[in-house]
């Protein structure tokens, strides 16, 4: 019987269920641009389609300062406080 020590950070991902579908979609949706080139074009088009199909949705735009670094903690907190949903997207 050999014992070894766990080399990982031992973080156990939280298991999440898909929220029950309630029918109409309303509230605040965040669209997050990670700042890869042309990601804004993809998100512009997505925002246009959402406005057409889900007029009750309040869409807000966010962007990371740079795609090369993790999202700053204040921005994470802002999105968490302001949004019901978030779509993070990139194009390349």
């Amino acid at each position, binding site marked *: *019987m*050999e*014992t*070894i*020590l*766990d*080399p*990982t*950070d*031992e*973080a156990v991902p939280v298991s999440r269920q898909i929220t029950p579908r309630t029918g109409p979609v309303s509230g605040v949706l965040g669209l997050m641009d990670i700042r890869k080139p042309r990601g804004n074009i993809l998100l512009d088009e997505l925002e246009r389609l959402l406005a057409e199909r889900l007029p009750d949705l309040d869409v807000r735009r966010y962007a990371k*300062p*740079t*795609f*090369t*670094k*993790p999202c700053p903690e204040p921005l994470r907190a802002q999105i968490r406080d302001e949004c019901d949903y978030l779509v993070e997207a990139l194009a390349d």
Partner: protein
Amino acid sequence: MDARPAFELKSTEGGTRSFPAGRPALICFAKEDCETCNLVAPLLQALHEAFGDAANIWVVGQSGDGNTVFRDRHGLTLPLLDDADLATSFAWDFEAVPALYWCPDGATAETHMEGFVREEWQGLATTLSQTLGQGRVPVDWAALPAWRPGCASKHLDPDLNDRLRAAAENSPIRARRITIAPADDVAEFMFDQGFSDGLPLVPPTPERVLRMLSGTQRDPQEVIALMPPNMGEATIEKIAINAVMAGCRPDYLPVVLAAIEAICTDAFNIHGVMATTMGASPVLVVNGPIRERIGMNMGLMALGSGNRANATIGRAVRLAVRNIGGSRPGGTDRSTLGSPMKFTMCFAEWEERSLWAPLHVERGFAKDESVVTVFAMTSGPVQIVDQESRAPDELAGSLGLGLEGMFLPKYHNMPVDSLLVVCPEHVDTLMRDGLYEKDRLRDRIQAVTTRPLRAMLADDTSGAGMTREAAAGLSPEQLDRPVPKFASPDNIHLVVAGSDAGKVSSAYHGWVTGAMGSQAVSQKIEDMF
């Protein structure tokens, strides 16, 4: 003396015996192959026969199966307890066997003796008689030697002691312990768990990790970085575990720790370095006295295989990023191709082989400080061969032309670092007429790689470069503007390494440099000497 640690041990006669037991106790630790233990065995049996009704006279055996051999050899009827895993010996913390403790209150040792001193044992027998009110012990003391040394207790065997320290209550180990079933192969298990970079790992047993931790004076639970993408807490202990797996020696650990502190800065940006499709990886350059102390290679094959320190320090850093940070190929590591540097890339600078100030001194450290500098590099080492140049400027020109291929030869004005490793023979050529300053070499590289802007336009040969539309808006004078390879001479980093034979230098090509990419970071290494 404080109360002795409690124990519950199996007896060779069956059942278990517990200490303290609420009655006077004489406990003697012994091992079967110790000559002095064999000398005192009949004495202990005599004490048991004389005082066994009033006190627990027990031998704690360290020899496993040898305990019964010891018992039968001396016809012992006293309880002989099995401490084969040595946990009780470790907890009682003595140096030599026989180690004898007399606890008249059943818990606290009034007398502690190691080895055999006849007068002391005889005095103890007298004490027992007086305390327990029994008769004299039938021992011919005069026939016994005056003194015999004991043997080193088995729990002090270095390998066993590390295991015992790791398992003890005050062990610094906090990481989750994973027990692998005997039927499982530990090497295969570690592959299956995703701990590996693809090569075999040294199993990070608690005793190996404890030994690794002896390489630093820092608190094992100190968090030295939050490592992306999972922002995992990189404790000294977790890094030590990965260093064991990589094959490091404990004296390499301070270099690994400093490198991890460096790559986890915002300036270095390990997240972006790992995530880019360009296959970037940290390249570690070590300077200062630690190079010699831990036997790093800065000469022949410095950038290649064969040296344990070079190979395993770089690997430990990469494994830590994988396991603590959670950056894995196909996860957030999105390299299109990657490179062998994703396994390891670490070497030392041969500071003494040139007239130049070494890298760490250029970067503001004292020469006698040990420092690791980390660079984010996407490719390399790329050989630059020049066997013919004999004049300093000729060779410097060749080194420049060798660097022009970085990313794509037509790309210029690049805000991208390069790390040029100049080999000793090339150093000799550069220094033929005296010191050839590093800045002179940088300027020469910029000069020989300077091309007119029009050479950087997209064309039928290569669609890369300035678009045809953008170029159409520029005047002929603007298109004639000279553009060097690098946005700044500061993008060119210079070190010396390699064997004395061979006119072959080497270059590493960087990634995006600057605030949005990665900047080289130097970190002082803990001095353990």
